[in-house]
């Protein structure tokens, strides 16, 4: 298929960017979206132009590096997938495809389609961990009984790959789905209880400090999340937050 691409080009974080039109021809419907981008970049390199910078790593839907706001949606029009798993069969010959970086004040553009997602790292560092001694005397995890239900829910929350699609899709650029998932994965397990109050308070404080917006419960995040994290994570975080504040 032959496509017209409208892509955000921005030289560096200080430059003023703009949308630029490109044409790509003979794209196979079996290609992934990123492979289509590779074809474009090869074309650009061959004609001596600067290739389009975009994030990617595993190309298997597990690392969370790929991003892209495609035709007005995070990770494009398909559901439950990252951009590297988006296939060109979702598009038609002759289509015009708009490709933009994640837009959120706490995710500044570094170059073209790449944004700085270090804000997520800093939120994680504020409390997204448990303190266990791993210096040679690690306990067997099975010595702590955990209900199947809690283990399953914790695993579901832990599926979050930190891609930032939730923030990108949110009209408020709220990071609550991400933080909710990270809080939930520990809140559901006994290992997470010791630091539970500090964790939620510190992570929420860091989230606010980074300048993410508030949650209006539009639910856009859970629709666009490639890993099926739901608003129940946010509700759990809200409960954890109240609990932590009541305890003082």
């Amino acid at each position, binding site marked *: 298929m032959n496509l017209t691409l409208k892509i955000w080009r921005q030289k560096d974080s200080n430059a003023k960017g703009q949308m630029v039109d490109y044409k790509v021809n003979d794209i196979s419907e079996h290609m992934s979206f990123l492979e289509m981008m590779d074809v474009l970049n090869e074309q650009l390199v061959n004609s001596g132009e600067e290739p389009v910078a975009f994030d990617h790593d595993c190309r298997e839907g597990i690392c969370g590096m790929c991003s892209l*706001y495609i035709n*007005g*949606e995070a990770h494009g*029009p398909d559901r439950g997938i990252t951009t590297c798993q988006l296939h060109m069969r979702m598009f038609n010959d002759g289509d015009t495809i708009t490709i933009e970086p994640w837009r*959120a004040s706490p995710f500044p553009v570094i170059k073209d389609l790449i944004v700085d997602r270090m804000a997520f790292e800093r939120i994680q560092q504020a409390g997204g961990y448990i303190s266990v001694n791993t210096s040679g005397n690690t306990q067997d995890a099975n010595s702590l009984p955990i209900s199947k239900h809690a283990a399953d829910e914790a695993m579901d929350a832990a599926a979050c790959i930190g891609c930032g699609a939730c923030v990108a899709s949110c009209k408020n650029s709220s990071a609550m789905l991400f933080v909710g998932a990270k809080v939930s994965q520990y809140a559901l397990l006994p290992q997470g209880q010791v630091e539970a109050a500090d964790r939620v308070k510190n992570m929420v404080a860091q989230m*606010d400090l980074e300048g993410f917006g508030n949650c209006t*419960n539009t639910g856009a995040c859970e629709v666009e999340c490639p890993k099926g994290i739901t608003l129940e994570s946010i*509700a759990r975080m809200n409960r954890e937050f109240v609990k932590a504040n009541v305890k003082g």
Partner: protein
Amino acid sequence: MSGFLKSSIGRKIAMALSAFFLMFFLIIHLAVNITSIFSPDLFNELSHFMGTNPLVQFALQPVLVFGVVFHFVMGFVLELKNRKATIVKYVQDNGAANSTWMSRNMIYSGIAILAFIVLHFIDFWIPELNHKYIVGMPEDPTRYFGELQHKFVPVWRVIAYVVAFIFLGLHLAHGFTSAFQSMGSTAGRKKTLQQIGKAYSVIIPLGFIIVAVFHFLNH
């Protein structure tokens, strides 16, 4: 506690609490208004009670005023922070793909309601305060029905009522279940509450509209 209200989650919970109070208040308000359709006497009696009972006047009313003011001030505070978080907009943004129009426009439906509240204040509250405290007229327990009827004579006011209550319906169509989610409850995601929410967001505004239109046609 002030730290709690500075955090995004604390504010959200306070927003939901004030909203719950407002939703409760609307039920009472509508119940009183509806009586004006079939019994002017009952309406007068209830209005007289609401207007003179010390518990209503000095406990519930201040809470209500605080609740309304808190709700819309916090609504603006949240909106401001959200705007700061989203300074650069997408060239193409397909919001309808993943969320409802109501959920994305709470601030606009809210502003429409606020405009109505201002009108309502000028229409009923200021004359009421004037009557009671400034002019200091003796209380006439039968005056309310006539005052109400009188208000719905001009057609512009009836239209303003209808439009405002449509916006209230849109506000509540998202707000009702959203408030549960904000409180950390997942009940709003279940079918039962979603249906109650839908019913509430239609019945309450429709009730107020019916009262206004009824008196417009029957004065």
